[in-house]
């Protein structure tokens, strides 16, 4: 997997590059701002870009704007945004053009390297990786809490993992249950919420998010 990193804190940028290289990935470029990111992506056509949202010069949403552009201009490059705080508005803007090949994680998630790289691989492969906080916030902002009350605790866990962009297999692994159990839960959720069942992970994420976004 070929990766471009855009992060203004040198310490984190280097550590990320070191970690990814150590796990056998190729870091084509590691840059400190959004303009350099655009250039690096155009030059290297990586599988995925890891992008800090807040970067110079304004330290607001440079990374997000670059990410949206990259998704439009280089559909082959997935973008994983990460930041110190989750902003629901940013998530909505990112997902407006679809959930394929995008991710939005809290920076803290880097601390769990295995999960972080798993998310990165998922985004590189055209999947979705959303932070549990994004899912919670989206659900909290919607008026669907009553419907969600119909779900069992386990079903809510599964829904949250689905919304994060995970496949049934990954959900089974995360919850330490069999694949069959997960499939049963998923079917129950879709039935209870009246969502169209879908085999495709991306469409499923979108359906769930749209539902949560109410």
């Amino acid at each position, binding site marked *: 997997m070929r990766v471009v990193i855009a992060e203004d*804190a040198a*310490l*984190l940028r280097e550590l990320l590059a070191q*970690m990814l290289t150590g796990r056998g990935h190729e870091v084509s470029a590691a840059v400190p701002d959004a303009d350099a990111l655009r250039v690096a992506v155009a030059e290297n056509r990586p599988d995925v870009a890891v992008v800090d949202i*807040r970067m110079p010069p304004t*330290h607001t949403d440079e990374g997000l704007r670059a990410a949206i552009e990259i998704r439009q201009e280089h559909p082959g490059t997935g973008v994983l945004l990460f930041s110190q705080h989750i902003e629901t508005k940013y998530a909505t803007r990112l997902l407006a053009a679809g959930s394929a090949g995008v991710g939005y994680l809290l*920076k803290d998630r880097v*601390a769990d390297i*295995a999960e972080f790289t798993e998310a990165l691989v998922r985004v590189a492969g055209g999947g979705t990786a959303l932070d549990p906080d994004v899912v919670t916030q989206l659900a909290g902002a919607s008026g669907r809490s009553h419907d969600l009350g119909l779900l069992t605790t386990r079903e809510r866990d599964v829904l949250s993992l689905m919304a994060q962009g995970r496949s049934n297999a990954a959900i089974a692994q995360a919850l330490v249950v069999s694949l069959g159990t997960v499939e049963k839960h998923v079917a129950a959720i879709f039935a209870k919420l009246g969502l169209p069942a879908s085999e495709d992970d991306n469409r499923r994420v979108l359906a769930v998010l749209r539902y949560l976004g109410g």
Partner: protein
Amino acid sequence: MSGHVRQARSVLGALARAPFSRRAGAEASYCLLGLPLAVAGFVLVLVPLLLGAVLALSLIGAVLGLLLVLVATGLARAFAGANRRLARRLLGDDLPEPPTARPGGGMLAGLDARLRDAASWRSVAYALAKLPAAALGAYALGWWVTALFDLTAPLRWTLLSLQVSVPTRGVPVITPLPFGSPHADSFAETFWAAAIGAATLAGAPWFTRGAVAVDRWLRRALLGAGPLARRVRDLEETWAIAVDDAAALLRRLERDLHDGAQVRLVALAMSLDMVKEKISCGGPATDTADVRALIETSHSQAVEALAELRSLARGLHPPSLDDGLANALATLTAASRVPVELGVEVSRRPTPAIETIAYFCAAELLTNVIKHSGAGRASMTVTQVGGGPLQLRVTDDGCGGARLIGGGGLSGLSQRVRTVDGSLDVASPVGGPTAVTVTLPLHA
């Protein structure tokens, strides 16, 4: 002796030149133009005001009466504005416009706001009081006219004697002060008249200046911002500064955390996870060096995160301040690169907020000394006597030239001090020494 002579000569010269100075001309013009304006203002304000007041007393005419009163106050404001402009043009006396009444809500509320507007009523008072002041000005103008009239007495005599053989009744002489009605009955006597004219001319500019001074006093008292309005303006300004300051502090704090400690802690957690992975893999012994390196990085990240958090915390509130200003300043000055002689004599302890401001002022002034002055030594004194204000004084023997300029560090400090009604004074001639004095009340 010659010094006295020179002094007397220069005083006499000034007196002789005074009637022909630009200032005398401007002041006389002000009296001249002010007179018709004053008469017009007096009439235009008083008539609708009286009419309105009388009508407002009757039940039927109340509405019309109130409207007339409003017209009177509006005219008074316009008159005040005209006077303000005249004074600015001719006398260079720039008096800030008072804030206009901002009627809010419905018609009744607007009416109420207009009727209650203090600035309008002060303008009314000015329109009425201006008339006697203008009369004084007119009298001052009389001096100028008198002077011109008497000075030309010999000329008039000559002209008259050309027409008629000898002026039968002489030429009249007028005096600024009532003094019968003297006549010059011979050509020689006209020179007496001219002398009176010269004396009057010498006095005219001073009398004019007096009349203008009375008018200025009236203008300041009635048309300038009242003490309350000035105070409100001052408070609004410093309040805005305080709010901006607080917001900027929070933003800086967030930025510092975001770019500093938070990044280090994320990196620390990441490094530790990498260590965990390496250990749980149970790899060959060659990995030990890798693991050790990772642990060392983690350790240094933790140490740096701690240092950053500590400096952030100290930046918010130095813990030593809880034990009083003297202790905190002792800690501050002890760490200074430039040796500082510290003296603290405080009889009544100020509130914590004032102590904090005093401390940060001291810290910033000391930083300035170290960074910009090139001083070899500095002294810092804090004094507070009886119920008086707290005075912080920082002096150094450096290069001087420190100034309060907009956007500069000192002016930022001065603004912050003003938010609690304090003040900051800088005495810093080029070449030094520099002395900055911060005066703070004991409570905000």
